[in-house]
């Protein structure tokens, strides 16, 4: 191969022996790259089973509670609460004092993962409006006094429930931070044998997750707090001193 007749110069005809070599080497090289595509794409882990029915506008009737994040408890299934968010990376910002406790109609696209539910509301009045202004009956009480220590991470509920797949982990940190900044309710997720278990996470006083904890979003954490449930939704109340980065 080393004689002058096989020396390659780009603007001259390619020597024959070199053509034969390239016919062998190039398919091997390209084949190896395509193999990587198949193997690496095929080894991506499952992004979870969240679904965003983003072309399926639905109407819901029920009552809104702030717990501390807005949740719709449907009239026909008050045990199946829906978290409420807006489109994009925005939480539901509405006139809550005028809405909480009243019967409302919500219109939007549902997201679901396991038994967790969410509605991405249509913008403005079309998304959420009062249908009966007198408070209807009593709201369900929160139950549960269990204190638990959990390992996992803080994510935003919208992406994790199906808006972005996968919607957790370090690569998703920026997006989760942006979502939670924008008012999307934060979740604490913890790995189980066959997936994840998750709770809304809020301060020990029952107020939304304090801003000082945003830098910990997506980082591996151990937290200790009280678990409560209401309308099919669970939350964990955590004091900042009970959060330990791992």
């Amino acid at each position, binding site marked *: 191969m080393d004689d002058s007749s096989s020396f390659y110069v780009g603007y001259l005809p390619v020597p024959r022996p070199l053509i034969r070599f390239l016919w062998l080497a190039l398919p091997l090289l390209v084949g190896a*790259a395509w193999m990587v595509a198949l193997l690496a794409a095929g080894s991506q882990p499952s992004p979870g089973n969240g679904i965003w029915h983003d072309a399926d506008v639905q109407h819901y009737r029920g009552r809104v509670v702030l717990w501390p994040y807005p949740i719709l408890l449907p009239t026909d299934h008050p045990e199946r609460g829906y978290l409420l968010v807006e489109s994009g990376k925005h939480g539901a910002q509405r006139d809550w004092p005028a809405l909480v406790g009243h019967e409302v109609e919500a219109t939007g696209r549902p997201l679901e993962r396991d038994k967790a539910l969410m509605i991405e509301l249509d913008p403005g009045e079309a998304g959420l409006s009062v249908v009966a202004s007198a408070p209807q009956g009593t709201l369900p009480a929160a139950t549960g006094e269990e204190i638990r220590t959990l390992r996992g991470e803080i994510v935003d509920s919208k992406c994790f429930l199906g808006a972005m797949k996968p919607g957790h982990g370090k690569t998703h940190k920026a997006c989760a931070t942006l979502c939670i900044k924008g008012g999307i309710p934060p979740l604490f997720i913890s790995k189980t044998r066959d997936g994840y278990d998750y709770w809304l996470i809020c301060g020990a006083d029952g107020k939304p997750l304090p801003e000082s904890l945003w830098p910990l979003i997506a980082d591996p954490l151990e937290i200790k707090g009280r678990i409560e449930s209401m309308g099919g939704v669970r939350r964990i109340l955590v004091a900042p001193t009970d959060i330990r980065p791992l």
Partner: protein
Amino acid sequence: MSVGYVPVQWNRQKRIYDAIVVGSVLGYLCLWVLCGKLIWRGAESISDEILILRGLGSCAFLLLTVILLIGPVARLDRRFLPLLYNRRHLGVLTCLIACAHGILAIGYYHGFGVDNPLFSLFVNSAGYRSFAGINFELFGAGALVILITLASTSHDFWLRNLSPRIWKRLHMLVYVAYGLLIAHVGLGALQTDRNWAFVFTVLVSVLSVSAAHVAAAMKEASVDQGTHAHDGWIDAGLEKDIPMNRARTVCASGGERIAIFRHADGLAAVTNVCAHQGGPLSEGRIIDGCITCPWHGWQYKTDGCSPPPFQERVATYQVRVVAGRVQVSSQPSRPQTAQSRSATHG
């Protein structure tokens, strides 16, 4: 070679090269997306944006790995030189794919929110708390800035106007970009998901780039001869040991390599560094009486000047033969003074 500049000087081989590269890249991306869609379906399907973004990222990373491998591999086995000939187009394509990945990532992960996406890139993925939590996206952004700089200065127009020395230094930044990418992937994707095939790919890529560079450097060091200068002359072995129309290298005490060619009319010594992109002239040939660089085929007459109308020059050295042994001057003749260097047999 350069007399006038056109945006792209295509010829038949560059066209074939580009067609193969573009076809391979499209094939890679299609296979990635198809496989990703088949492996997780229905409720468990991966978001299209993320699937495409990962395909683009991994494709750009592999292309950069190939780009870094071509140089040393072509020195170890010159049959790979055809891959080097049009490496510039490979680099520009890598940059375009990396841009698509970066734009998609910024739009998808940083868009739709309360912050400006570019501002978000700096603040929202910022885990400055610990090394493991560090903002991996900034490493990707740094690599992208370098790739864009290199792609936009890759044309011979810039080579000429920045001077080959500065151009070469600038383009060494590609190694910095590769390092940043390893951090980008190692501190990002590899810390999130257990994708063993991808971990393996990154490891093999990094190891082969390192190994090829070490092997090529060792080969180069082993062919250097006669580093001792006596009275300003370096011994370069027996004249008959230099094959016809080819060269042997010696290393001057300053570290500069000199290529000594044997041709029909005698011997000629020039610097080993091509005036174009620093290709190793000693690995070239004499074709039509001209020293021809193995990388992109620039030519120099044995006096170091390119044949007209080209005006490139490389430094030349005096050579003589003493008792059958070649000796080369350890100092260059001034490159401007073209002088005949037919060997003086003594």
